[in-house]
């Protein structure tokens, strides 16, 4: 993860910086598009949850973190993992269940993790990452480090009890944790608003004593600026912060979900006008970046990732014996 030389400014975005984030978004989009195809082709097993349409949040938050900062993620974790700096080849290997996968093929998409870059794991249980991130922040505080923990979660997760317990804990102990709510309006097939009361994630966070920033999560420069300010505030010891980022998921809940429960017009409008990549491209064009330059970025990611996937699919399967390792030291299975 390259650190920005100067803090971003939403009002006057820096073209070079933004182009870097744009590349991260493309990397996520291309990675997931390929993963989706590979899943449909039976090369990736299990469930996969795509964050296509939500890439700006991961890219911008990730760009404001140091490598030694840590994050916890959700079932929809590819973007966070890429943005934190994980190697896409190791990620593809993980999705394909191959040796050399980030988790040796034991986790798959839903449990992808790369501790070498501080990515502490996707999670198959909604909201489970919240207390884990807070605990990580507690450890950071105990050790007196200046790292921070970031916790990504969805709007649906704000209806689970651990949301309250984790946020209260973080605020009560003034821990260095940034909560990032990726609010795509849905929890699986259910419109979150139809089963949620009150003023939404931000209001809940505020009631637990955590300052809230609301941002258009598909506006790359805006998320970047907000994340920069919040990461700085958290790192300076001001306690937890909460970023409520509105976004939209362009695909189904899982890669096998046609998402017919969503209004076609709603989806169309989002696809047409709210693609974070196209919006960022427009911003970059306004800053003088040529279509060619953008095209080069995209092509680079396409080529690199297609090669990575091919390598992953060429990689050996893990040895069956590894199924029995890393369970525990004492009382391990034979």
């Amino acid at each position: 993860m390259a650190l920005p030389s100067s803090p971003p400014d939403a009002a006057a975005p820096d073209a070079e910086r933004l182009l870097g984030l744009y590349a991260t978004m493309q990397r996520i989009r291309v990675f997931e598009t390929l993963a989706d195809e590979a899943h449909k082709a039976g090369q990736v097993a299990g469930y996969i949850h795509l964050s296509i349409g939500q890439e700006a949040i991961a890219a911008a938050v990730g760009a404001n973190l140091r490598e030694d900062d840590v994050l916890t993620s959700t079932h929809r974790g590819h973007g966070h993992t890429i943005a934190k700096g994980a190697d896409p080849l190791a990620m593809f290997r993980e999705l394909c269940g191959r040796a050399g996968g980030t988790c040796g093929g034991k986790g798959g998409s839903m449990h992808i993790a790369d501790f070498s870059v501080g990515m502490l794991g996707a999670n198959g249980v909604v909201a489970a990452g919240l207390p884990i991130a807070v605990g990580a922040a507690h450890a950071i505080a105990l050790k007196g480090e200046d790292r921070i923990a970031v916790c990504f979660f969805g709007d649906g997760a704000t209806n689970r009890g651990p949301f309250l317990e984790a946020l209260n804990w973080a605020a009560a102990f003034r821990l260095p944790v940034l909560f990032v709510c990726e609010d795509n309006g849905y929890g699986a097939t259910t419109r979150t608003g139809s089963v949620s009361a009150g003023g939404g994630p931000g209001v809940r966070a505020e009631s637990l004593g955590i300052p809230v920033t609301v941002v258009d999560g598909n506006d790359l420069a805006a998320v970047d600026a907000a994340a920069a300010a919040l990461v700085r505030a958290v790192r300076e010891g001001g306690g937890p912060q909460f970023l409520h980022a509105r976004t939209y998921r362009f695909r189904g809940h899982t890669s096998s979900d046609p998402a017919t429960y969503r209004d076609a017009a709603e989806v169309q409008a989002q696809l047409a006008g709210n693609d974070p990549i196209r919006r960022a491209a427009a911003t970059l064009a306004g800053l003088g970046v040529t279509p060619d330059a953008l095209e080069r970025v995209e092509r680079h990611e396409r080529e690199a990732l297609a090669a990575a996937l091919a390598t992953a699919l060429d990689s050996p399967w893990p040895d069956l014996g590894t199924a029995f390792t890393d369970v525990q030291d004492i009382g391990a299975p034979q």
Partner: protein
Amino acid sequence: MSRLTYREAARLALAHELAADPAVWTLGEDIGRGGVFGQYQGLQAEFGPTRVVDTPISEAAIMGGAVGAALLGTRPVVEMRFSDFALCAVDELVNQAAKARYMFGGQARVPLVVRQPVGLWSNSAAQHSQSLESWYVHIPGLVVLAPATPADNYGLLRAAIRSDDPVVHLEHKDLWPAEGEVPLDGDWEVPIGVARRVREGRDVTVVTWSGGVRIAEEAATLAETQGVSLDILDLRSLWPWDRGAVLDSVARTGRLLVVHEAVEVAGFGAEIAATVADALFGALKAPVRRLGAPRIPVPYSPALEPASRITAPAVAAAAAGLVSWRS
């Protein structure tokens, strides 16, 4: 008799109880859209959103709320989506649902059913594959069911909904598309606590349930080629379990193999093995054996997941080992 899938049988069982008893209702995440496995398809359209209730992602409130609703005489059927997520509502199930009738001296009952899809399916890895039936059997107050066929899922789910006890109803995710004949006439249900004889055999009794049944059936075919004949019992109901049927069979064969997909260590197979080895001590031709998963979390990779699976060849080999057993 109708030929139905396990999924459709479960759907109809619930539909029939919803139609028969206004006190019955069902709640869970996304069930209005049919549920994760389509087992609720069309029910919200048929019975309305107040009886087929889409909930927030709030497992503790789903389960705890069902306890309160059951105490007031309604009969909630709770969907947990994956049995693994029921771990977000254990206090509500174990400390509240299972104990309320007893703690309150019989003043109230808790007639709820909690559906927990279990088992290995589609490489879903460590947090979407667990089978924890032995936990629930250990908890006083709970009835535990684990149907393996469409008929049993239909008949046991109906019996569960009609029961005044809290019931943990474990449906195996790999079985949703499995087909079979289901008697849909009238009030037919499967009696809780009665095993089903899947296959008659001479040499080794195999006791199993849920996803284990198909594997045992396959194993029987393999074993047959080696001259070993398996007597297969599908327990269907884990608490209460059909001790009589198991002892009868083992008394005849002199050999018992318990097969389950759950982790073998401290699995429910241990209870059956311990019970039978005690009750038929001296009458057995070979030790009682168990075959379950190794004590590892379920790995994701298609290359690794087999490590967590029990297989027909392994069952057949274990059975053959019992037949040729010499101390």
